[in-house]
């Protein structure tokens, strides 16, 4: 079954992102939102983990990026930016949602 994992914590403060990365299987998706979008910053310590995740698709919530002054160019290549409607689509497309709160 395919999973949508959601991460809403900064990877620099909490372990949620790391824990999610260690449990996300090939074929699953990870949505970064709220403070989780800080894991989407290009050149950050989180970038390597995003790039290393084999077969995992990454998304970041645009409204949360913009609220935090992060333009699209600051986002790690390969991470797709979605809005709330896109969040809903992701939740619907995957068999379940796993929240790493």
């Amino acid at each position, binding site marked *: *079954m395919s999973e949508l994992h959601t991460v809403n914590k900064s990877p620099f403060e909490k372990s949620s992102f790391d824990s999610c990365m260690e449990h996300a299987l090939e074929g699953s998706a990870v949505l970064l939102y709220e403070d989780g979008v800080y894991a989407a910053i290009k050149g950050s310590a989180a970038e390597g983990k995003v790039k290393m995740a084999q077969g995992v698709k990454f998304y970041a919530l645009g409204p949360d990026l913009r609220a935090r002054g992060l333009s699209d160019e600051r986002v790690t290549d390969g991470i797709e930016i979605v809005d709330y409607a896109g969040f809903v689509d992701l939740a619907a497309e995957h068999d379940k949602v*796993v929240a790493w709160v």
Partner: protein
Amino acid sequence: MAEQIKNFLYLNRRAPYGTIYAWESLEVVLIGAAFDQKVSLAFLDDGVFQIVKGQDTKGVEMKNFSPTYSALGDYDVNQLYVERESLEERGLSIDDLMHLTWEDEDEDWAEKDSIRVVSRAELARIIEQQDVVFSF
């Protein structure tokens, strides 16, 4: 509509007492046990601290809810997965955990262990197999 049986997993990643999440999560498990779903619990990250034995809350004047985990077997909640790496990272082993058991009606009420220590990779697969994952 036909009665649906779903696989429910409760994802426990938080330590007890510092916040109420662990205790209120356990309340959901107890209520949910009445619903005839297939229930399992996963303890990973700081969640493994929830089932450490010897909890004594007298000094902090909070309710010690750890005995409730021992009652889970009576509610037919007997699939408790504990992540090995989470234990090791915290300097713990299975011997530091409460001995949680259940009685198997099909085998003349034989006492069996509820806890199964699994690797991180195994737990990832267990999460994958669920229909619903609760996070608190």
